[in-house]
């Protein structure tokens, strides 16, 4: 039988994903003089980065001259409960200011200080006001800037192209196979290096701030290609998502609301965060309302408000208040900014939040408090990478942004995501380009592998009877929401793993109707494979880690355990099964350790 031929594109480097990390990686690789293909599931400029609100964390010292990379590094490590890859956290803190200035050079218009420099705002877990921002739509500014800079750099952009699998030549990654959404035809990309920049896994949960694109594609592509994942138990539930009306449950309410003066209150009107200050942050957090109030005006002589503790702490506190019956009418708590700030201030600093609540919930945030509750927002875990080059554990594979693991440890600080995208996006583009340049051999894309991928992708059209892909996705979201949520237990995690196994069986029987042209049912059916993979990884890692830390809280192991503070949970695919192991964290050098002893 004659072999089918597929549309094929060849590049030195392909980048999968065109959010902040992917765009920055593609720009850097192109600057190194290699041929670059940038592949995105959506139209260019629509990636999840567009939804980022608060800002880019970078110790530029424009507002607080005392700020520097060491302080940012320390905040990041402490926010991650010391489980971060120290070298990633160091590079991130050192390079973020240059990356922000570079965005400015490419046209980003940040809000300014009185002196005309880039203004910086307060955020949870950051010692100094540090987030470069544009109102509450910083992500939009970032993606537009990278997009309009990127289109003039000689990068080939492949829009609405959904990658299904990576292909390998021996041990090396040598390309990827996907389909075009617009016509359902399959397409092959041959490349010396592949950069994953696919973002997160939020669509496995029911209540999430994530867009449809966050189906864990890159995590799964890497795992299936033999690469290691780390830290998949650490899932960030952002403390403040919308809770009402039901159809908007989960949509993000930016941390900037609290950064700019908003306070959390229960149904008795109490600022409950004062009751939830953990030992770890006691020394730097105000323990009474009077001091916290003074802090807004005089930051030198007062400790920070507990409303700006790291996200994991705030999310758990909100969860406890709701469980104790002190929640708001629609099952959240109150977030109040109108008491402290004028309508003018709110409209200027938080225009999207005003708009969002006004139009979707009929709530005027300049006059009344918001109702908010935790929403799945981010996964700290991801592809295990070399900090300097972002290389994965399989040759030819690189990863940057949310799909990469290690940078944020067990909990990410707000604002550290956009800076992560820029710092490691650039490093991924550089690492992949240098790898491609230095690779002298010949790569062959094996047609047998391509055929198998195509066959698997088209199977759902030919099955008789069978399952509805939307129903399986909804069931998975229910499972993860109820059993692998903010608070976990061994029994529930085991039940989740069993249920995921059943869902995998059902996904094998999924059937789609209609043709291959822009068929949403087919796309959903194919997304199930990666969603189920990341759900299984997250549940398995959560079962393994028998302690509570950052974005992983075990009701049956409620304390943080130093032994667990020395290991990552590593996941890899062996003989078709996800294998779980514990491996030691890289040891931080003495001069960096000293940063944690100096100031308590």
């Amino acid at each position, binding site marked *: 039988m004659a072999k089918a031929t597929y549309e094929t594109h060849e590049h030195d480097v392909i980048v999968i994903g065109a959010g902040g990390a992917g765009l920055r990686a593609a720009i850097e690789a192109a600057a190194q003089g290699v041929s670059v293909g940038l592949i995105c599931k959506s139209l260019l400029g629509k990636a999840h980065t567009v*939804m980022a609100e608060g800002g880019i964390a970078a110790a530029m010292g424009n507002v607080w001259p005392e700020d520097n990379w060491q302080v940012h590094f320390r905040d990041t490590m402490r926010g991650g409960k010391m489980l971060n890859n120290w070298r990633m956290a160091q590079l991130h803190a050192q390079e973020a200011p240059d990356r922000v200035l570079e965005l400015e050079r490419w046209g980003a*218009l940040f809000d300014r200080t009185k002196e005309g420099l880039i203004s910086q705002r307060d955020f949870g877990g950051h010692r100094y006001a540090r987030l470069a921002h544009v109102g509450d739509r910083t*992500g939009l500014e970032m993606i537009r800037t990278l997009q309009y800079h990127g*289109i003039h750099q000689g990068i080939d952009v492949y829009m609405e192209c959904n990658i299904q699998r990576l292909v390998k030549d021996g041990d090396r990654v040598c390309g990827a196979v996907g389909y075009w959404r617009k016509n359902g035809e399959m397409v092959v990309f041959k490349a010396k290096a592949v950069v994953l920049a696919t973002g997160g896994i939020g669509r496995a949960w029911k209540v999430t701030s994530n*867009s449809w694109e966050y189906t864990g594609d890159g995590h799964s592509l890497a795992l299936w290609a033999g690469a290691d994942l780390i830290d998949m138990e650490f899932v960030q539930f952002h403390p403040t998502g919308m809770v009402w009306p*039901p*159809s908007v449950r989960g949509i993000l309410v930016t941390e900037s609301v609290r950064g700019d003066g908003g306070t959390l209150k229960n149904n008795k009107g109490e600022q409950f965060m004062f009751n939830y200050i953990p030992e770890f942050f006691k020394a730097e957090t105000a323990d009474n309302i009077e001091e916290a109030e003074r802090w807004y005006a005089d930051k030198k002589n007062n400790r920070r408000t507990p409303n700006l503790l790291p996200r994991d702490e705030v999310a758990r506190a909100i969860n406890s208040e709701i469980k104790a019956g002190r929640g708001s009418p629609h099952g959240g708590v109150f977030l109040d900014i109108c008491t402290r700030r004028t309508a003018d201030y709110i409209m200027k600093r938080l225009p999207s939040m005003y708009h969002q609540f006004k139009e979707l919930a009929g709530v005027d945030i300049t006059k009344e408090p918001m109702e908010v509750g935790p929403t799945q927002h981010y996964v700290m875990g991801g592809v295990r990478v070399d900090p300097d080059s972002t290389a994965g554990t399989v040759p030819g594979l690189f990863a940057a942004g949310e799909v990469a693991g290690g940078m944020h440890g067990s909990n990410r600080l707000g604002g550290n995501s956009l800076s992560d995208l820029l710092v490691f996006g650039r490093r991924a583009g550089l690492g992949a380009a240098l790898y491609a340049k230095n690779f002298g051999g010949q790569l062959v894309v094996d047609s047998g592998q391509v055929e198998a991928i195509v066959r698997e992708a088209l199977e759902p059209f030919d099955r008789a009877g069978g399952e509805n892909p939307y129903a399986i996705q909804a069931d998975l979201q229910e499972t993860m929401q109820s059993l692998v949520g903010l608070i976990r237990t061994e029994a529930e995690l085991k039940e989740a793993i069993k249920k995921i196994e059943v869902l995998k069986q059902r996904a094998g029987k999924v059937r789609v109707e209609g043709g291959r042209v822009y068929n949403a049912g087919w796309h959903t059916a194919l997304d199930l494979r990666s969603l189920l993979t990341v759900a299984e990884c997250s549940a398995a890692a959560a079962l393994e880690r028998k302690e509570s830390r950052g974005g992983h809280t075990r009701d049956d192991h409620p304390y943080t355990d130093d032994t667990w503070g020395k290991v990552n949970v590593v996941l890899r695919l062996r003989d078709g099964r996800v294998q779980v192991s514990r491996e030691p964290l890289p040891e931080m050098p003495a001069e960096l350790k000293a940063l944690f002893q100096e100031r308590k």
Partner: protein
Amino acid sequence: MPAFTMRVFRGNPGGGALRDYKVDADEGMVVLDVIHRLQATQAPDLACRWNCKAGKCGSCSAEIDGKPRLMCMTRMDIFEPGATVTVTPIRTFPIIRDLVTDVSYNYVKARQVPPLRLKPPDADGKYRMMQEDVERAQEFHKCIECFLCQDVCHVIRDHEEHKPAFSGPRFFIKVAGLDMHPLDTIDRSEFVRAQAGIGLCNITKCCTEVCPEHIHITDNGIIPMKERMADNFDPIVWLLRKFRGGRPEPA
């Protein structure tokens, strides 16, 4: 839980028709929620674009009862219970399938816009700009590229022949944003005249009316640009500029 009749365009470049579906809507639902419910229960292969469902990405543009809107920001409770709600694709661009259109025109136009070139930074390597100066340009940076302004612009909508030399309101405000950047050095007037075709716009303000970000496309973007064009061809202004010397370098 009122049931609505969703009258949705189903079809492809070869043709299509409006099809009626009865769908329940829960409290607070938006049109996009109902379309998703339709996909999950009755029309699994229904094609529609969406990403963020929060009015930030500009993917789910459609015409709802003939009005260009974002599906994710159009609440069902603006319609009478039991009403028929018609959802059709944005009409200006070629149909791919159902509610999805080929918007590649906009990406071609995007590449034609002469990019920014900044003045050198201050001696300490930093750029300084005042808040009130950046705010003027920031208004145009709010654009989410939903292309509703492009959809409703009759120069594009009704005149296929204008497409090669007209870039539409989205790119007029793109240019306005670049021109108003306090540190930009490029003169885009020839581009705006010849390639973007600003002369074809006769200021009907349809674009401004449909902008979900409430950008003053016409008043703050297009009209000042048209005035500058007029100035450029005014011999007195030209002479004055000659005497004063210096104008930005052409793109």
